[in-house]
Each structure stands twice: as C-alpha cells, then as structure tokens.
C-alpha cells in the first residue's frame, strides 16, 4: 500500500513537472482538384467551366518554398524544419501533397498562411548537387532542374486538350524569377494545438483566374520565354488557384 501511494505521488509529481509545451506541430495537406472534384489524370474529362476547353492532365509537378504563418499583426513567421532550415516541398502526381512541420511553432492564433510556388534566387541558381538524398530540391527527386541552363522549373504541367475534335498536347513549364508564384490564404488558423490545414489546388483556375488562357489561342506550349507572356499569365493564375478547405485536429 505504501509503495502504491509512493508510486501515485511520484506519477503525479512527474505529470505536474512536465511543462505543457509552448510549441505545436502542424501539417499542410493539399488536394489537387478540378472544378471541385479530384483531379483525374490521363482522362480527357476535365472541362474548364469558363472557357469550355476540355483538358487531360499527365503531369502536375511543382516546387514550393517560403512557407510562413501570418501572425495577428500581419508579420510572417517562417516555418522551419527540425534543424531550423527552411521548409521546401515537391508535389507530384501519385504522391501525397503533404508538408509536415515539427513541434516548433509557437502556440497562437494565426490569421493565415503564405507560401511560394517557386524558389528564391539563391536557391534557384545555387548548386543543385548540395541537396541530400530525398530532399525536395534534389534534382533526382523533382526532375525539375534545367541543368546546364541553371535554375529550376517551378511548375511543370502537361497534358492534352480537345482542339476542334483533335487531341493535341499542351505543356507549360513555369520558370524564371519573374514567374515565382506567391500564395497567401487568410483564415482563422488556431494553432493552440496540433492541427492539419487542408487546402485545395484548383487546377481549373490555371486557365481562368486572373487571365483567360486557352491553348488553342494563346499557345499550347511554353518554357517561360518567347511565349507571348502565356507562362506569366498562368503564373499569376496559379497564385489564385489554392483555396482554404478546413482546419482539422491532428492526432
């Protein structure tokens, strides 16, 4: 009995001495969508609601960086990994579009999240061989490094579309610093406990958010130069293509 009481006392003391952590973990989960439905690949079924163009997607690759929480005063809190380094992400077909941030975020109510599809200049033109195995910026992970020309393709989207009944290819590779795609989403982001924020990536908006883009009229191919500005227009559409879905408790 004495031992049992001692045990209980020790346990209670230990619990009391365990400080309630001031930091929480956070996960960002992005769902690729087309007009509210899951984005279907290799299927000529995606009808753009504004232009009526029908698309088939084969590739949706993108590099994301500069993740930050927007604090109540409007300032940004950069998200970092266990080592304190900036978070990067690579999203591609067939793999989860998830970014996990460890237990290092101060508990608070934030008012939004920001990130960039693309990279800053130092990362974009830096030596790509420095990134460790499995890192999102390792060229063998993302296959988005242009090699000798230098720099990364920030977003590579490819597929086919119906052009007067004919199935024709389209390909837009968004690159170069002027085509970085900043994303800011405002919302109540209560991070007083571990949470998962779910976003949608609404691919139909690539072709109609700020600018109408029709492959048959604006050009079906771009590598971000000498393209009549189509890559830049798409990049501005991309900034508007993410939407807030829900904040969930993270178990």
């Amino acid at each position, binding site marked *: 009995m004495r031992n049992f009481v001692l045990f209980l006392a020790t346990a209670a003391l230990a619990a009391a001495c365990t400080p309630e952590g001031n930091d929480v973990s956070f996960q960002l989960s992005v769902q690729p969508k087309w007009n509210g439905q899951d984005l279907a690949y290799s299927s000529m079924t995606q009808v753009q609601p504004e232009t009526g163009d029908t698309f088939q997607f084969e590739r949706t690759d993108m590099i994301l960086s500069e993740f930050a929480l927007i604090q109540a005063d409007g300032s940004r809190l950069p998200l970092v990994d266990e080592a304190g380094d900036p978070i990067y992400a690579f999203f591609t077909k067939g793999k989860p579009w998830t970014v996990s941030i460890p237990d290092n975020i101060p508990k608070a109510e934030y008012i939004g999240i920001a990130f960039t599809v693309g990279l800053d200049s130092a990362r974009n033109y830096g030596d790509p061989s420095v990134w460790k195995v499995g890192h999102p910026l390792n060229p063998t992970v993302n296959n988005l490094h242009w090699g000798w020309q230098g720099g990364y393709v920030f977003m590579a989207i490819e597929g*086919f579309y119906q052009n007067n009944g004919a199935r024709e290819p389209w390909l837009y590779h968004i690159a170069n610093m002027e085509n970085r795609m900043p994303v800011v989403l405002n919302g109540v982001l209560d991070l007083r406990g571990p949470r998962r924020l779910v976003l949608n990536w609404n691919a139909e908006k690539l072709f109609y958010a700020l600018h109408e883009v029709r492959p048959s009229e604006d050009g079906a191919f771009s590598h971000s130069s000498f393209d009549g500005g189509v890559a830049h227009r798409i990049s501005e559409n991309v900034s508007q293509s993410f939407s807030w879905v829900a904040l969930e408790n993270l178990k």
Partner: protein
Amino acid sequence: MKYLALVFVALVAVSCGENPPPTTPYTLNVPQGFPPPPIPEDNPLTVEGVLLGRRLFYDPILSRDSTQSCGSCHNTSFGMTDHGLRFSTGITGAVGDRNSMPLHNLAYHTAFFWDGRSPMLRDLTLVPIQDPREMDHSVEGVLAKLNASPTYRDLFWKAFGVKTITAEELGLAAEQFMLTIMSGSSKFDRFARGLESLTPEEQQGMQLFNGEANPNSPTRGADCFHCHGGNLFTNHKFMNNGLDTVITDPGLGGVTGNPNDMGKFKVPSLRNIAYTPPYMHDGRFQTLMEVVDFYNSGTHANSPNIDPAMGDIIRAGGLGLNLQERLALVAFLNALTDTSIESDTLFQNPFN
C-alpha cells in the same frame, strides 16, 4: 567429465567463430556536380560486397552452361552495352528483342530495363539469369553452383555473413557493384568544371541541345534538354517519343497493363552515348546522326500516347535543323563520352 568440458569449449569456440569478420565501408566516388546518390539503406556499400558483386558480374557461372556473364552483354569498351549489337544473343543462340542498356549512374535510377519491370537494381540481376534468350538458367541452379564453391561461400560469408547463399545476397552483391559504376568525367564535365574548352562546333551543339525549338525564339534550339536534361542527361521518365504510328512493343504498358503506358520506354541517359550504338529501345538507328535526323524530321504526331513534351517539335514539323547544326549537335553528344569507364580498373573483369 573432462570430455564434456572439452565438448563445451569446442562448442563455444564454434559458436564464437560464427561471427563474420567486419566489413570495410566502400567510399563511392561521386563525380563533382552530381547529387548525392540514394544508396539503399539495407545494402550499404562495402569493399567486400562490391568486389564480390564485380566477380559475380563477370563470372559466367551465372549462365546455364557457364559461358556467359553479365559482362558479356555489358562491356566497358562499349559503355556497358553489347558491342554495338542491335540485340544480344543468349547461350542457346536465341536473340532478344531490345537493345542492351548501359549500366552507369544506376544509383540514381528508380526503375530498370527499357520497360521499367524491375524497381530495384537487386531484382535486375535475377532477370537475365532466368531469361531463356539470355543466360537460360534458374536462380536455384545458380545458387547450387555458388553454394558448391568454397570460394563463393567464403566471399559471401565475408560480405554478408551468410553460410548459405540465397537469391537475396546474390542480388545485393550485384547491386553493390552496379551502384559503384559512376560516370561523370567526360569532356563536357571537364568543360563544366573549367578544366577544358569545347570546340566552337561542340559549343554550338551544346546551345542547340539546351535551346528550345521555339519559332519565336531568336536562338535556335533542338529541345533535347527537356527529356535529357540535368547532370545525368535523363529525366528518368518513361515516354513515347513518336517513333511509330502503330505500337508493336508495349514497353511500360506491358508491365503496368495501363493503356496510357503503351509504347512508353525509359528515357536513356545520353552520357557515353557515342559508346552505345545502335539507338532506341529496339536499336533501329545505327548512328547518332540517324537519331538527330529522326527528331529533325521523322517523328510521328499520331503515335499513341506520344508525350506532350514532343508536341513542340511535332507542331513545328520537326526540329528543322540544317546539316551543319545537326553535325554540331552530334559533336556535342560525342563530348559526353567518359573514357574512364573503359579504363577504370574498378569496373574491369577481375578474371582477366
């Protein structure tokens, strides 16, 4: 009683002897500018494992009649391919239907063979052993030979600590050797490191290689880099480049069963491409000029599952390069040749 003590001591001695000797970590020579290679965590490179893998690679014991080794069809003098042959001939005289692939920088690959049938390098080894058009053997038969060999039993013991050799260790040893075959010492690499100059023709070829085939661009381009870009000169994808209007070889589709994959093949690295004629999965082109001519004017827009990346070229009716430009492109491709793969003793046949 003394007898029992003797038995006990003997048992202890035997059981202590069961511990394999420690292995020596192998330091991989990664070419400058290459990203760190993803070595499988369950198969760290060791000197013992790599040397055993090399011995196996060159040992004809892997074929049913002990006449052919892996090295028979993957020769260092031909960029680890088969002597310029379109198809390889197996021990029975049967001929394959796809061109022998080069075996360098495999550490970066995530699928092997033209159709991607093997997700890991260790699996790759067991395929030709059992193919009746190649080594025409069985894994069981090979393992019986290896286990009957005191030399191999000793080498596997030292490399993997096993008394009985299984298919797992056979694959792991071969994987270790193939992971070490790195190639990054071409003239282009020396140029990129500021150690050597390219000729004006090679420079022009490099600009064409890395330039867009965009009629609106003031510079000419051949669009090669989209699929063969980066330091490894491949995007590691499976693509249909518009070779045929009718698919006769399903390629990746034969493995996945997905109709959208029919006619797609692994995009090969262009490193050492001058060493490895003929070209394409079926070796239909004998020379690099024939390959360039194909992209210049021979692609088929209506090829099923043609990759969107080919669209730019096809829309323009081909690359439209003149003869001088095509020659320059070939000159640059020749500058991707790394002679060290032929001379590096680490990769050579240890039986010679």
